[in-house]
Every structure is written in structure tokens, then in C-alpha cells.
């Protein structure tokens, strides 16, 4: 049996308790172990991506119970891509956090690895109930990380975050129950075969389950009308954690892509077209709300959080079309927006730490140490996230617009994506000029004070920005890989055959 697919789960699952139990009093050892584990995780993800690059689908039957009776892990191109993205972002965020953030509370490193465990599990699992379990794993780690360092406002934002997600988890269970009650299975590949055979009398239950699932994944992905929790959570979370959370919204997007191409795809009969009809208008509303929020925000943290909401809108508009071309564009934008949002959250934290009592408020204050270098980073990341040339945001939006030329909604999609991009550019330009330019007119300079020393944060942010540049320079080969990924998503037979054995796919 091929044991590769379980390694991205085993590694953090072993390293996290080791850090929490054996080396909990020694911050240096904790850092060594968690960085080593994350580097190893990155190497593992790259190896796994290499193994499935030829289009094969690897499966791993836990406990050797044959699918659909046991739980199965499935590694295809999309899962491998998400694993690589998570470990890249995780490594750079961890490098940033080592400069002090990890000492503001206990157990940062083990919670961080548990978080990676949950995210990796959600990407790898091939079972709907197991997806729920991994959602809970990543959520409970994120609750701990969200309130890391404490503080009244942060803990209260954390309470809101937990309440929202508890309601979401309950809805997830209801949806899973409804789907199980009419299909008798929760294995995704088995469901893909089974939903087409659901009796007409049970269709209403199946549809309700499918729409509830969309609501649950939409909650994770900050989709309108359940996007409102995100700005409060992300703006109040510790900066490295907000940067890591940039990939959490993508867990929701991933689940939407997976479930509504594999299970509720075109072959699912009436239930197949449900997601597309709801997703595209909701995504457009998300886009408008997010970008208007960028303009209305009163602090940098809020502004970046709203930019994340807006970018989820762009991403899900493209997902909602459910064509291979738009899916490939959506995946490119997904890679870009995760890295860009991660970089922006870290840059905002650098500004916050240096501006003392002015923190990240959008007001002019005396200039601060290393303002020039940070301004350069902010400029690059802002160009990327608003979608201006030459960085990957521009290419991503271009690919998405190009893939959505057809259809009656094309005018709306083009109009809204282009006009909200302009709004975002205005918002970020205003923020940059207030924080960096108008500060030059203010007398004096803020004292260096307790500004963290060391160059590691700059290295981490620089590497994230370098990833964006790489994503732009190698856009050709990357979108070639993504085209294949999208094609594999819509050609479901490989996935179903790999899980259930050949001959079951209809």
C-alpha cells in the first residue's frame, strides 16, 4: 500500500503534541521543531504534487477498510495544489511569527501545526463526514490562535467567531444528515454515483442538503450573506494568524469546488444546477460589499480584511460559472489572493508595531522607522491585491474576465469586477498616501521604542512577495497545470474509479 497521502496529516499530528508536551518550556526548541516540521511539510507537498502531476489520483484507505465502507483520503491535482499553497503560506507566516508574536501567549507553535493538520485534512479527505471532522480540527485550533495574546477586544471578536462557526457546524451536520438519509452513503465518490439515483420523492431533501452545504461552505468562504463575521475576526486576530486565515477562506472555496463539481455536478440531475444559480449572484454581492468596505474602512487591518472579502467574491464568481476555463482562472486567482492577502496582513502588522499608539488607524502620524522599505512592500502588495498590472492580481482578473465572456450575466460580471477594482485601487491609494506620504509632513519621528529588531519579518514578507512575482513570471506553466486540474475536476471518472475501483462511474 502506498502511504504517501497520509504523511501530510501524520507529520503535524505528531509534531504538534511533541511541541506542546515535551518542549513547552523552551521557546527556541519549539521554533526549531515547528519550522523544521513546516519545511518538511512543504517538501512533502511538493513530492505529492509531483506524484499526481501526470493526472493520476492516489487514494489511501484508512485502516485498510475498502471504500465506501471506510474513510478514504484522495489526492488529486487540486488537493496537491492546495497542500502546496498551505505549506508555502504556513512556512512564511511562521517565519514572521518567530519575531515575537509566538511569545505573547502559550502553545502558539503546537496550535499552528494543529491548524495545518486540519487544513491539510480538509483538502485530502474523500468523505463528507470526515470533512466535517477536519473542519472542526482546524476550527478548534483557530479558536486558540485567534485569541493568542489576549486583549479584551480580541477575545470578544473571538467569541463572535466561535459562535458563528458553531452555528455553521450545526448546519453542516444537518446537511450531512439530509444527504445521508436519501443516499445512504457519505463517501464523496460513492455520493457522486448515488445522487443521480435518488428517488423523485426524496429530491426535495437532497436539494435542501445541497443548498445547506453551500451555506456552510459559504460561511467559511465569507460569501454573502454570511460574510459579515470576517472583517471583525481578521482585523482583531493576531497579524500572523490573520495571514494564515487567508488560506482558511480558501478551505471554504475548495469545498465548494470539490462538492459541486464531484457530487452535485452536471450528472446529478436537478440538484446539479443548484449551486451555480445561487453562487454567482451571491459572489457578486460579496464582491461589491467587500470592495465598498475597503473604501469605508477606518484602519488598515479592516481594509485588508474587506479586501479579502472582495477577493473571495471575484474568486467565487469564477467558480460559480462551473466551466473548466473559469475554474482554471479561479484557481490561479485563488493562489494569488491567498499569498497577497497573507503578505498584506504581515505588512500592516509591521506598520502597527512601529506607529505605537496610532496603530493601524488611517490617520496621518509622524513617520516611523524603516518607513521606506515597508512602503515599498505595501505598494507591491496593494498593486497585487487590487489587480493592477504587472503583478499576478492583474493576470488573475484578466483570466477570470476572459473566461466569463459568454452568458447573460457577462455584462454584470464584467461591469462589477472592473468597477470594484477601481474602488479598491482608490481605497488602497488613499490608505498608502495617508500612512506613508502625509506622515512625511508631520513633524518629528516616532521613537523606535519597542519596535522589534531583526530582519526575519522582512525576509518572510519579501519571500511572500517574491512568490507573487514568481506566480506572475511563470503564469504560463502554472496556468497549464491549472487547466489540467480543472479538466480533471470536470472529468469525474478518474476520481470515482480511483476510490471505488473501475467500472462504478456512470
Amino acid at each position, binding site marked *: 500500500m502506498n502511504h504517501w497521502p497520509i504523511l501530510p496529516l501524520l507529520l503535524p499530528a505528531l509534531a504538534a503534541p511533541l511541541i506542546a508536551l515535551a518542549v513547552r518550556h523552551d521557546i527556541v526548541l519549539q521554533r526549531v521543531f515547528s519550522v523544521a516540521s513546516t519545511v518538511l511539510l512543504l517538501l512533502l507537498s511538493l513530492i505529492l504534487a509531483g506524484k499526481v502531476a501526470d493526472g493520476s489520483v492516489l487514494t489511501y484507505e484508512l485502516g485498510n477498510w475498502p471504500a465506501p465502507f471506510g474513510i478514504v483520503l484522495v489526492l488529486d491535482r487540486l488537493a496537491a495544489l492546495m497542500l502546496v499553497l498551505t505549506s508555502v503560506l504556513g512556512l512564511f507566516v511562521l517565519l514572521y511569527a518567530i519575531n515575537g508574536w509566538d511569545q505573547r501567549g502559550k502553545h502558539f507553535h503546537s496550535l499552528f501545526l494543529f491548524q495545518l493538520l486540519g487544513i491539510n485534512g480538509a483538502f485530502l479527505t474523500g468523505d463528507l463526514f470526515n470533512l466535517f471532522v477536519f473542519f*472542526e480540527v482546524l476550527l478548534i485550533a483557530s479558536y486558540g490562535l485567534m*485569541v493568542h495574546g489576549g486583549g479584551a*477586544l480580541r*477575545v470578544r471578536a*473571538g*467569541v463572535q467567531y466561535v*459562535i458563528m462557526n458553531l452555528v455553521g457546524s450545526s448546519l453542516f451536520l444537518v446537511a450531512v444528515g439530509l444527504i445521508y438519509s436519501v443516499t445512504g452513503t457519505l463517501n464523496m465518490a460513492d455520493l457522486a454515483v448515488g445522487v443521480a439515483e435518488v428517488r423523485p420523492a426524496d429530491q426535495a431533501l437532497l436539494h435542501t442538503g445541497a443548498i445547506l452545504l453551500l451555506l456552510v461552505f459559504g460561511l467559511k468562504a465569507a460569501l454573502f450573506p454570511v460574510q459579515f463575521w470576517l472583517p471583525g475576526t481578521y482585523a482583531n486576530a493576531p497579524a500572523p494568524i490573520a495571514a494564515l486565515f487567508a488560506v482558511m477562506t480558501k478551505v471554504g472555496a475548495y469545498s465548494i469546488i470539490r462538492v459541486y463539481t464531484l457530487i452535485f455536478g452536471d450528472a446529478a440531475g436537478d440538484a446539479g444546477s443548484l449551486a451555480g444559480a445561487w453562487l454567482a449572484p451571491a459572489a457578486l454581492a460579496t464582491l461589491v460589499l467587500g470592495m465598498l468596505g475597503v473604501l469605508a474602512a477606518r484602519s488598515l487591518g479592516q481594509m485588508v480584511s474587506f479586501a479579502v472579502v472582495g477577493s473571495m467574491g471575484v474568486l467565487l464568481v469564477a467558480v460559480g460559472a462551473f466551466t473548466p476555463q473559469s475554474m482554471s482562472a479561479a484557481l490561479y486567482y485563488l493562489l494569488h489572493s491567498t499569498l497577497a492577502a497573507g503578505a498584506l496582513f504581515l505588512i500592516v502588522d509591521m506598520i502597527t508595531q512601529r506607529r505605537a499608539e496610532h496603530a493601524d488607524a488611517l490617520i496621518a502620524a509622524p513617520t516611523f522607522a524603516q518607513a521606506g522599505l515597508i512602503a515599498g512592500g505595501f505598494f507591491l502588495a496593494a498593486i497585487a491585491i487590487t489587480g493592477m498590472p504587472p503583478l499576478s492580481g492583474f493576470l488573475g482578473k484578466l483570466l477570470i474576465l476572459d473566461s466569463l465572456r459568454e452568458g447573460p450575466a457577462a455584462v454584470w460580471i464584467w461591469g462589477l469586477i472592473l468597477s470594484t477594482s477601481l474602488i479598491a485601487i482608490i481605497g488602497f491609494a488613499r490608505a498608502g498616501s495617508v500612512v506613508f506620504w502625509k506622515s512625511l509632513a508631520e513633524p518629528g519621528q516616532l521613537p523606535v521604542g519597542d519596535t522589534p529588531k531583526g530582519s526575519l519579518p522582512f525576509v518572510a514578507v519579501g519571500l511572500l512577495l517574491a512568490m507573487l512575482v514568481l506566480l506572475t513570471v511563470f503564469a504560463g506553466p502554472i496556468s497549464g497545470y491549472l487547466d489540467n486540474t480543472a479538466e480533471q475536476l470536470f472529468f469525474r471518472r478518474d476520481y470515482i474509479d480511483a476510490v471505488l475501483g473501475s467500472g462504478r462511474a456512470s
Partner: protein
Amino acid sequence: MISLEFIVASAIGVLTAAGIYLTLRGRTFPVVVGLALITYAVNVFLFVMGRLAVNQPPVIRPDAVAYTDPLPQALVLTAIVISFGMTAVIVVMALRAWFESGDDHVDLEVSGEGSRQ
């Protein structure tokens, strides 16, 4: 004669309705109780999704004539454990928020003066 299905379904409905009402309240204690009620409702709902069957074993026995679906029972055990843990987390976080800010409102905006009666 009231059927078993009717009793179970209305129990789920009442639990959910009470849970939603409490979850929409403004302070953390009713919200936590509301969340607990919702998770109870969900657990019962999960349990009956394999249909109600009386006096039928879930695992293989030589003398059994029919079986009830064992999978929902396994799922609901997992769901109970997870929701119990999550309730513990929210209780601790709500207490911590109250200690740190002296305020038990869920809403972020109400913080500061005037919100403490």
C-alpha cells in the same frame, strides 16, 4: 395515537426554535445555552436520519430478523463529542471575554461605557 416520528420531529423542532431564539440574544450566556440546544437538536436529527426502528439491533446477531442503520449512531457519537468540546471552548472564551472587558455582550460595538448596567 401519536406516532413516534411525530414526537421525535416535534422535539427537534422545539429544540431548534428555542435554540435559534436564544442564539439571537445579545448576551453570551443565553447564546451559549441556545447553541447547546441547537446541537442537541442536531444530534437527535442525525440519530434519526437512518430512520426510526424499534427493537432492532445495529450490529450482527444470529437471532435478529432486521437491523437498524448503525452508521448514524457512530456519526452522532462523534458529533456529541465534538459539540461537547466546542461548548466547553465557548464557555471558557465567553468567561474570558467577560473578565477582560467587564461586559458580556456578544456585539463588538456595544463595548465601553453605558453597556454595563
